[in-house]
């Protein structure tokens, strides 16, 4: 029992630190990719190729003066970024980072918690994530912050519907709610993207909206709302909000890779590597490659597309994606009925 707790604790710490480091270097990658897409070099002064830039940014964030507006509710003002950070880090628990390592005859699963309703857990945690933004925006006692918070929350609850509906079609084909099992089912070439292309498209668009990334970054639209919900925030509290955004991006990339792109599975890998532990670690490596690709995709889209207008955003969500997701469910059902998967 004790060894089990220690192993889980170690795994939690590893997942936690990897998530944080990934989020930290996402900020660096964002600036670097933005630079490259605009024919510039991006940050390259702190360390070789600017590799220490996130550290420098972190130090700067900590050194900055901490401001709490006089009339705001102090407790809620601090609670906002904490909730945002907390919920974005919680999601990493159900992602299967790999199958099981076998060390000294014991099986050590690389998934922190294989909850049998993993997908619902993900949806639940993301739906709670709205509060971080809402509470922070309201507690700032600033109309721009409030408007940003309202935009963020209405956007997130609108796109959560389409997100959930696109996942339902996926669950119909996989027949399970456990993310570990969904990942395990996609061995070889059986990646879910091949069975659910439309569902994937809806899912990734909703993921962009859920993480408040461009072209759906209206909550922090600086041309209209100064900084959106984090207008009044400074120092590390602002850092927490920004960090939570990048953590969300990392986690949603991991979810996309796991649900639709085979997770830790890589076809033909078993032919070249025979040591089971090496195979597991290579699988984890390939999962991270996929995650990196999706993070790149997030940034690539951000630096290509202009922002949506708010009514366009709502039209796309309610009149475009939700009917499409329902259509996708119907098509999936019909195809499954024809192929005899359900009777």
């Amino acid at each position, binding site marked *: 029992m004790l060894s089990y707790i220690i192993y889980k604790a170690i795994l939690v710490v590893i997942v936690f630190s990897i998530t944080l480091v990934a989020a930290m270097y996402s900020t660096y990658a964002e600036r670097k990719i933005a630079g490259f897409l605009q024919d510039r070099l991006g940050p390259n002064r702190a360390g070789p190729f600017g590799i220490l830039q996130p550290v420098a940014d972190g130090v700067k964030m900590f050194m900055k003066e901490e401001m709490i507006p006089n009339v705001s509710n102090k407790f809620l003002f601090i609670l906002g970024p904490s909730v945002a950070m907390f919920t974005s880090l919680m999601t990493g628990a159900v992602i299967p980072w790999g199958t099981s390592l076998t060390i000294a005859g014991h099986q050590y699963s690389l998934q922190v918690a294989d909850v049998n309703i993993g997908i619902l857990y993900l*949806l*639940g945690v993301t739906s*709670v994530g709205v509060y971080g933004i*809402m509470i922070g925006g309201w507690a700032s006692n600033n109309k721009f912050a409030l408007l940003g918070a309202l935009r963020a929350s*209405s956007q997130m609850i609108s796109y959560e519907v389409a997100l959930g509906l696109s996942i339902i079609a996926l669950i119909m084909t996989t027949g399970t709610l456990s993310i570990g099992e969904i990942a395990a089912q996609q061995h070889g070439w059986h990646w879910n993207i091949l069975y659910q292309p439309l569902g994937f498209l809806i899912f990734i668009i909703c993921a962009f909206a859920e993480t408040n990334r461009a072209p759906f970054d209206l909550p922090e639209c600086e041309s209209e709302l100064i900084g959106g919900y984090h207008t009044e925030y400074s120092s590390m509290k602002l850092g927490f909000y920004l960090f939570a955004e990048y953590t969300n991006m990392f986690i949603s990339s991991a979810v996309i890779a796991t649900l639709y792109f085979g997770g830790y599975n890589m076809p033909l890998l078993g032919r070249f590597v025979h040591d089971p532990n090496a195979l597991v670690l290579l699988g984890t490596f390939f999962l991270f490659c996929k995650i990196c690709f999706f993070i790149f995709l997030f940034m690539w889209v951000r630096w290509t597309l202009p922002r949506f207008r708010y009514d366009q955003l709502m039209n796309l969500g309610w009149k475009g994606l939700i009917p499409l997701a329902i259509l996708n469910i119907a098509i999936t059902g019909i195809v499954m009925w024809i192929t005899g998967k359900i009777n």
Partner: protein
Amino acid sequence: MTIYLFYFLSFLAILCGLMVVLEKNPVHSVLYLIITFFAIAGHYILLNAQFLAVVHVIVYAGAIMVLFLFVIMLLNLNKETEPHKTNLVKFAAVISAGLLLVVLVAALRGTESLPSPSTINADMGLVKNLGKVLFNQFLLPFETASLLFLAAMVGAVMLGKRDIK
């Protein structure tokens, strides 16, 4: 261990429930209500009903309460704009709340006739079993409920529509 957790969650739920009523600031009330919902979700997990717990969080804490917060944040509620309540309204409120209490008490009295917990399948709250029960035993109420939702949705759309000239 579990019993302590149960007491903790119950205490939290009741305390926050009271705070919902006692708190002057409506936004704080809503936040306390959210904590209450989380405590109740914890109770569901203790009963091994994970699906219910998560759906409870998604639907109540994640969606309905967000809408509540939304409306309250936009309403600009404060002392000056608070409508004056007549004694008649207060009386009606007391009556209806009392009726709700009677219903709750009546429902709680009915628990005596329930089968003892040991005879119920412990995995009842898992998705598979829940789905089987919902779509076999309780198919008609389930579908009726969804019809009700559809009607409510159409009604909301009709209300939200601009007047047709």
